[in-house]
């Protein structure tokens, strides 16, 4: 299978950073997932072969890390933090609002494939709570009104 040139140059560079090949695995899985959308059987087989690992060893690592997934997600993955600092400032309301507005539950994906939703643990935005990440972008000091605007923006972007 083929990845982008950027992926390949980063991969080659990273291999030179460590005494063992295997060390590149965790960040490489995330970069591969960003390109393909999820860690498909094809991606797993490819990386296992490149790093002299068995597919089982790769899957074993994937299942440990919460950001890695072997199932496709929406184009925009809403990760709403409901941990303590966010909870105190209304994160549950934000999460419930997302569930109703998108009509999906935790780890669900909308029928058009545009959005998926996740309730996540602390993302390091405690002083700017409540907060969420949409893919890698942080959105902080959220309110339901703000959520409306943010979601519309992504929707418009996604339709283009």
């Amino acid at each position, binding site marked *: 299978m083929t990845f982008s040139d950027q992926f390949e140059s980063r991969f080659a560079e990273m291999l030179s950073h*460590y005494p063992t090949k295997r060390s590149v695995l965790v*960040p490489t899985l995330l970069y591969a997932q960003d390109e393909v959308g999820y860690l498909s059987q094809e991606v797993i087989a490819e990386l296992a072969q490149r790093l002299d690992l068995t597919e089982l060893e790769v899957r074993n690592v994937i299942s*440990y890390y919460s*950001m890695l997934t072997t199932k496709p997600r929406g184009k925009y993955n809403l990760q709403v933090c409901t941990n*303590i600092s966010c909870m105190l*400032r209304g994160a549950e309301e934000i999460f419930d609002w997302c569930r109703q507005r998108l009509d999906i539950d935790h780890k669900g994906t909308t029928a058009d494939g545009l959005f998926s939703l996740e309730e996540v643990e602390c993302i*390091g935005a405690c002083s700017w709570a409540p907060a969420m990440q949409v893919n890698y972008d942080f959105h*902080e000091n959220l309110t339901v009104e703000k959520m409306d605007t943010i979601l519309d923006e992504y929707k418009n972007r996604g339709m283009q």
Partner: protein
Amino acid sequence: MAELVSHPDEVKIVSKRFGRGATGIDRYLELDGYKAVQKALGMQPDGIINEVKNSGLRGRGGAGFNTGMKWSFVPKQSPKPKYVLCNGDESEPGTCKDRLIFEHDPHAVIEGVVIAGIAVGSHTGYIYIRGEYRYLSNIMQQAIKDAYARGFLGKNIFGSGYDFDVYWHGGAGAYEVGEESALMESLEGKRGIPRIRPPFPAVVGLWGGPTVINNAETLASVPHIILGGAEWYASLGPAKNGGTRLFCLSGHLNRPGVYELPMGYNLKKMIHEVGGGIPDGQNLKAVVPGGSSTPVLSADEIDVAMDFDSMMKAGSMLGSGGVVVLDETTCMVKFALRTIKFYQHESCGWCIPCREGTDWLKKTLTRFHAGGGLKKDIDNMYYLSENMLGRTFCPLGDAAAMPTMAFIKKFRKEFEDHLEGRPCPFEKEGAVEQLPVMA
């Protein structure tokens, strides 16, 4: 990205370059950047270690171990390469300080890593940044590239004859990986399962080589100590608690934010003056003083100095600097449940007391908050937590047990208010689905 705040009581050292464009290497150099590492190159390794030791700098990740002391445990001679590993897997709930360091002052972290390397005789450093912080990983990759381009990293740094390489590394979502031995496993491309100690990482660490592991804030403090001197740094805080600390104020506050205050700053003042007090005319109920794993303090316990030793004396911990403030409308059972839900989710499952303990606590607290609890459950939860303490490879089990015990001890009445079919007194009627009482 994240908003910056300030307060007149702040002593800006680690945060002095925040918001001043120091991610650019030229600007960093204008702001005294890379002076400390050049000074360190002219010092004896033991001299660097002693300077850091005497400064009273203690681990900012939470454990609070003297940094110079930690470095001194690395053997002088080693058949295997030695490593420096910067822990930027910040994920303790309530903590959001390393994020600001990486965002505004990445070169300070690089500089700290190199100085630690010179001190222990290592030639390779890794900066591990959690996967969620992708934009910070990009900033760090650029900073490292710029430092290489100037000859500050790589072969013969600053023309000194000393070689030092720094590489970035990324995680993919795991609280447990913030624990030092699990961090090494993750960097080696494995599941983040902790290693038994001894041997400690300073002797047997990454790929079997001696490894110094420090939190990002700790390493970012080091260049300032080398330039300003141990005496100056130590004098900023009380005895054995040198310097300043980035305190992440969150929860029910008028002015939440990350503030750099001297060690030993009074917690009450921090909440009511720096953080602007409690909004909406509410009263304070409790404070989690150093990230979710530290035992809660009730409102009458907050007249304490925020340093490692005073907090220990107060029955809690300074932890990672995450100060979470709870007003009177907060249900402590629900708060305990949310805390435990986190630890249950993040337990790697390796040690039984942690894996099973967090799961039972979560189940019991869930039932409790839904009115299905029995009086004996309160003591059972306490007893269960007590038996998790110290019985695991890494402190995640303790991190779940310690706050639970404090919640029960200090807010027992709130637990009793939920007993035997009574709905949660803090929730709107019908908001929590009631569960049956199990005899």
